[in-house]
């Protein structure tokens, strides 16, 4: 197994709401902007249940690109934005920021990486608050990652909700079924080629008869003779 490696790169991002505008991605990796795929951050990034809790989330973009999103939540302070950190409804403002890594999984994020992202995020957030209506998503620039990253393992997508996978028959069950069918086949063959003892005694050159003929109720009747109508 490959061990953790350093020297990878990542891109900062920021998801936040303004005083008036709702949650949105304000800063996104440049490649996601170029691909028109940055909405994946809106969908998967959510605040932690504990303040400053770091979350590592493997995601797949709509175009199928696997990424690792490392993020945390920062409650905006008056010092961050030099004004009251509340929205128009009096609710606290919070930043969900972090970095996106496209090269592998990040097991233990280095705090220095997140610190660097927070500085960038706060600068972007100030610009956003300055013009919420006119603001457009900014492109995050690639930076060298300090956090250790390991090669990404392929995670199978779970089946869609509401579907169930039928349980496959066990190997033993299959073998029993096959054995029974083979045995039945052999016995039927033996039966078909077996002469009744009395007939064998009477005629040593007895010709085997067909099982179908033995069992057919109309074997001695003329064809269609007894059919109704």
């Amino acid at each position, binding site marked *: 197994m490959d061990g953790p490696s350093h020297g990878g790169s990542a891109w900062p991002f920021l*998801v936040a709401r303004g005083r008036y505008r709702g949650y949105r991605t304000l800063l996104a990796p440049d490649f996601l902007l170029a691909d028109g795929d940055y909405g994946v951050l809106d969908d998967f990034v959510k605040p932690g249940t504990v303040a400053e809790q770091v979350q590592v989330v493997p995601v797949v973009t709509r175009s199928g690109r696997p990424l690792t999103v490392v993020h945390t939540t920062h409650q905006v302070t008056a010092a961050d934005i030099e004004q009251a950190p509340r929205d128009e409804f009096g609710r606290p403002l919070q930043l969900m920021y972090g970095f996106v890594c496209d090269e592998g999984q990040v097991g233990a994020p280095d705090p220095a990486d997140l610190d660097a992202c927070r500085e960038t995020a706060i600068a972007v957030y100030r610009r956003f608050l300055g013009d919420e209506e006119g603001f457009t998503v900014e492109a995050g620039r690639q930076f060298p990652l300090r956090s250790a990253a390991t090669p990404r393992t392929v995670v199978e997508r779970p089946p869609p909700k509401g579907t169930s996978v039928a349980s496959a028959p066990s190997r033993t069950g299959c073998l029993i079924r096959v054995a029974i069918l083979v045995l039945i086949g052999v016995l039927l063959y033996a039966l078909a080629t077996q002469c009744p003892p009395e007939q064998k005694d009477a005629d040593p050159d007895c010709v085997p008869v067909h099982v179908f003929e033995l069992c057919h109720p109309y074997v001695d009747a003329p064809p269609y003779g007894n059919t109704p109508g």
Partner: protein
Amino acid sequence: MLVTTFVVLVLLLIAFVAWRKRVAERRNRNRPGFELEEAPPTFQVVALGLQGSGKTLLLASMYHRLKSPAGQSYFLKASPDDVLHLNQWFSQMADTSGEAGWPPGTAKGETRHFTFTVKTQIASGVRPRPMFHLKYLEYAGELLTEPQAPGSTVQEGLFDEIRRADALIGIIDGNHIRQHLDGAPQGQVRLEQTLNALVPIMLEAECPVSFVITKWDLLADVHPDERVRLELVQDLLTSNDHFRSLVKIHGSSRVVRLIPVSAVGPGFATVDSTGRVVKVPEGKVHPTRVDVPLSAVVPDLFAQVEGRLDEDARMAFHAEVHRRNQLTPLEAVASLVTFAGRTAGRAMVAAFGPSAAVLTGNAVMSMLLDSMGGGRGEPRGHLDEDLSQAERDHQQFRDARRQVIEDMRRKVAVLEDQLPHSRLS
């Protein structure tokens, strides 16, 4: 030799049949057998509201009010994780100490369902039984008004949920109404925004729709008489052409409600000089009518279904309601199956519209038929002594479920009695 072969064949056949039976038994071990017990159906509720309109606090306060059977026969049970979130929101909302503010808004990534099981005590000493589930969608309000970012799918998911809903609750921010009534242009703009977002969605809905005015406490000084206050608000809302046409269209075939609620209650919050809603120091939370919107969901859905039936189907429906009360529980199960296959039964299923609840089996139909029955006081066509224990248990279950629906109807009736303008149609 022929006889031996025949015997071996028969033995093999017996062994094969026995093996198949054992496999089938193993598969069915965890499946319920033929039981009188009905699986609780699930009704999906979506509250449509813009950001900051108070959806999350209404949800938290509603759960807080209904988490125990105080004042009604039923209560809500949620998963431990859901309870954790709901309690956290409620505690933060109720906390007036220090810097504790309102809970932060819901992020798009936090879109999730809260599934509440409506339970009731059937008999003393017996654990409360689930009657049905209410699945409530919690999401970021901006999903209704702002374009989806490229690569995001959460907005599509929301509109899918809306299409499948059994009830839509339109949330109108009471503070915006207050601002509008005070003549502030911002209030008018925000109210327009809200109705522009809600009305087109609700116009297409086949399920019952109701409107909830949140932050009702902030309108307390509009008029001392609450009836007059709601009348003023109704006049304001119906002055909007879109709102008025929605009420007219839906009102012809279903009830459209206007329910004023407050997640915190009177005197807990006020509007400061900057227009923000702030807590009053030492304020105490006394939620107002937060339980009514959810309590109205099932009774309104059932009333709508009945209202959609034609005359013949309605007569057959009422005949079945009466017949069920005369039958033993076991006979009622058989009768329900027969009824479901008849024209009236099929018409009833169709009257549910795209509701997912009705597709889960006959439980919803049984629930609807029982809820229209006379209840415990009505004479039955059999004596309880003649029933098996399982049938008696099932009879108790049905009586309890009928009582739950009755309690829910009572809450709505009390509202209509107190505030006649809460009924828009």
